């Protein structure tokens, strides 16, 4: 036989074309199997990376996970229960983003104190006062839910100009949020006025909303930070700064060690209850996702392979004929490999595109945000499909031993 020339090559492709076109039903079936495999491969690969990041982001709902507190005084401090404070301006030094993961860092500077609270109504005499813990806070976006999650959703639009009519007060009236237990105890509703007194100082606040958290916050009253600083006579101070750092456990550890360099004179600690639980759960979920993805990919590959093999088997007749008219085994095999590769390419190209759309849709269903399509996934999925298709042609090796005569005699 002459060296493969242009005529030979044209013949080669003609045969491949005829092989593909010979049975349109069968072509459709193979493309369907390969395309389904490619779609699942592409969708899962795309989702895999994105889902872990999004799951990590879900841990945000657990609230504050890092606390910055004043340094403990030296070993023999007589009073452990004395409330120490730190410089509230530290708040501005904390980076607003975690450079290792996306999502912003929610911050809140908090100042705790104990005071007496009573309902102050211009129409009636001041009610009985009860001791409560008040918390002055300053937070990013003026929303405490990132630090102390509560069941009542986002903060309402703050009403800035409610006219205060009552006895004159030393400071401008302000607003406050109160915990549900305290609200029940005082029988107070939003838009009523409260008076908070500590030693000599007092102030009035308008109830903005009632918070339901189920924790200690349910019996506390939340004020703007300057108001609490005024009451406690601690200008510019805070008891602690609470942060909600997004990201997976490793990101959070990294963020804390970065933070320690910025604020050497404060103690920074993860809230172990949440960081440790998060790490455990995150590990489980990401392990589960990886395992599912690997298992599904592997078995999808095997399924496609089995389907392809079934189809390849029936090519015995074709092989018999080709060998009978003088086709060398290697050339015949090359023909079928070319056919498999082409099928893989076509099935993969169509399937992977469908898979990427599938993953976008899945992301939207599960997380409410469309998954970012990763372009690298597309060629990887197509390549994987081609490899599977070519591997499925492996049983064709047996066809090398096909004896044309027995095929034509119908001895299957």
């Amino acid at each position, binding site marked *: 036989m002459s060296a493969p020339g242009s005529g030979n090559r044209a013949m080669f492709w003609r045969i491949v074309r005829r092989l593909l076109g010979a049975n349109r039903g069968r072509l459709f079936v193979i493309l369907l199997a390969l395309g389904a495999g490619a779609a699942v491969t592409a969708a899962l690969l795309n989702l895999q990376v994105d889902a872990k990041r999004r799951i990590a982001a879900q841990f945000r709902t657990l609230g504050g996970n890092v606390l910055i507190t004043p340094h*403990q005084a030296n070993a023999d401090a007589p009073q452990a229960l004395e409330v120490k404070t730190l410089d509230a301006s530290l708040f501005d030094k904390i980076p607003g983003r975690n450079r290792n993961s996306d999502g912003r860092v929610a911050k809140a500077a908090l100042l705790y104190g104990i005071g007496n609270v009573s309902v102050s109504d211009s129409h009636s005499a001041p009610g009985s006062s009860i001791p409560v813990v008040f918390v002055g806070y300053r937070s990013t976006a003026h929303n405490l839910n990132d630090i102390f*999650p509560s069941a009542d959703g986002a903060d309402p639009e703050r009403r800035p100009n409610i006219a205060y009519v009552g006895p004159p007060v030393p400071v401008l009236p302000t607003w406050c949020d109160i915990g549900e237990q305290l609200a029940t105890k005082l029988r107070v509703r939003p838009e009523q006025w409260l008076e908070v007194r500590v030693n000599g100082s007092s102030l009035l606040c308008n109830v903005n909303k009632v918070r339901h958290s189920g924790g200690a916050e349910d019996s506390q009253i939340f004020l703007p930070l300057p108001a609490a600083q005024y009451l406690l006579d601690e200008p510019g101070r805070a008891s602690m700064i609470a942060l909600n750092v997004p990201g997976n456990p490793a990101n959070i550890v990294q963020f804390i060690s970065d933070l320690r360099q910025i604020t050497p004179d404060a103690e920074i600690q993860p809230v172990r209850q949440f960081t440790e639980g998060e790490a455990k759960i995150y590990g489980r979920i990401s392990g589960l996702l990886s395992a599912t993805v690997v298992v599904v990919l592997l078995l999808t590959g095997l399924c496609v392979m089995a389907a392809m093999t079934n189809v390849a088997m029936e090519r015995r007749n074709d092989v018999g004929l080709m060998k009978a008219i003088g086709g060398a085994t290697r050339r015949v095999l090359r023909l079928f490999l070319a056919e498999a590769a082409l099928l893989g390419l076509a099935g993969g190209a169509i399937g992977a595109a469908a898979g990427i759309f599938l993953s976008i849709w899945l992301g939207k269903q599960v997380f409410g945000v469309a998954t970012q399509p990763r372009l690298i996934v597309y060629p990887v999925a197509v390549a994987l499909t081609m490899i599977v298709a070519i591997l499925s042609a492996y049983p064709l090796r047996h066809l090398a031993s096909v004896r044309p005569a027995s095929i034509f005699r119908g001895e299957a």
Partner: protein
Amino acid sequence: MFLRLVADSFTRRPRRKVLTAAALSLGMAVVTAALSVSLDVGDRLASEFRSLGANLLVTPQADSLPLEIGGVDYRTVSAGAYLPEADLPKLKTIFWHNNIIAFAPVLEVSAMFPNMTISKYGSPNRSIPAMQIPLIGTWAEKHLQLSDGGTFVTGIAKTNPWFHVEGKWFSEERHLERIEVAPTGHTYLPGTPECVVGEKLASRRNLQVGESVVVSAPKVQSPQNMQSCDITGILSSGGPEDDALLMPLREVQELVNKPGQYRKLYVSALTKPEDDFARRDPKTMKADEFERWSCSPYVSSIAFSIQEVLPGTDVRVIRRVAEGEGTILTRVRALLWMVTLAALLAAALAVGASSAASVIERRTEIGLMKALGAGSGTVGFLLAAEQLLLAFVGGGIGYSLGIILARLVGQKIFGVAPAPSLLVLVAVLVLAAGVTLLGSALPLRRASRYEPAPILRGE
């Protein structure tokens, strides 16, 4: 004759049938594994979420507001209401008792370390200044006798799994010490109680495991307002407990003269994520709705049933834990179901394709049968019977393979294998049958229109 034809088809070309069955079993194995893991994962993850700690907090109803800053209650011992410890075993009698993983009663007081410590040899060392500390009385690992005769081990070590103790937790009961009574013999008397000290407090007072400390409750009218204890462990919690001293609940009750009482109770319960229905007020529900609500382990319905057995309490859901858990659990479950669905779809398509291929290749045979006088219905019925047989065999093998796979995955990730479920077997067999029939339906319909003559001529 029909059966003979079917049997013949299997024995004539066994290799091809084996291949089709293999495709089927692999596909069904994916489906089985994915379904088993997905069915099981909700429960598994829910128990993982218990590492976040208690999701219910029980406090006295008629209580004064706690003055809690940084985990320390600044109320005096006389202020506020208390709850009886004796009621606690009732928690394991509620409808959802199996969902209650752990609970721990807590009695917190503000106590003093007097200006002395006791060294190992019992000699007082008076060089250290007095210091105010939070004292927490609780159960560490209490063996609770239940009314049905069983015991339930619970305590703070279980509700707060992030607490790490270097050394060991205190034991609830005092150890009996053998005292020699000269000259006749000996007797047994209760020894010193044990305690665990927070790591920050330990480093400030330079305390170590094996040493003893004295703690006093100065503001309390009590017959015995000073108590020494042996340190059995150093606690690291990452929270306010690091500054506290933890003692058995009973010892703190005696110290502050509140026998058998506690102030708050943490309950850790396995729950189902709340949906819109769960958030409704049970008082506004109709009878059947209320029944459905109380028969679902929502955190709010568990809170409701706890309140029924512990009268005079206020049971509140710790939103921070419960809501976070709810959102994450719902999302992860949805994600897994989607992945399962995608796998199911792919497996179905691959299996369908393979069974379609197996019908297409039998054109000649169909042509021959028709030429011999078989109607389209008979041919279709014959092929369908073959495919169904294949589906059941393949589905059965796939199910066993899938169960093994699910075990591997479950064991690897959660350390517990999901139990094989009959539901999954039924689902898999139905799916296998459906998919193979659907896959063969299309080529069969075309086959029914075949003219025998051209096929037999090989056109």
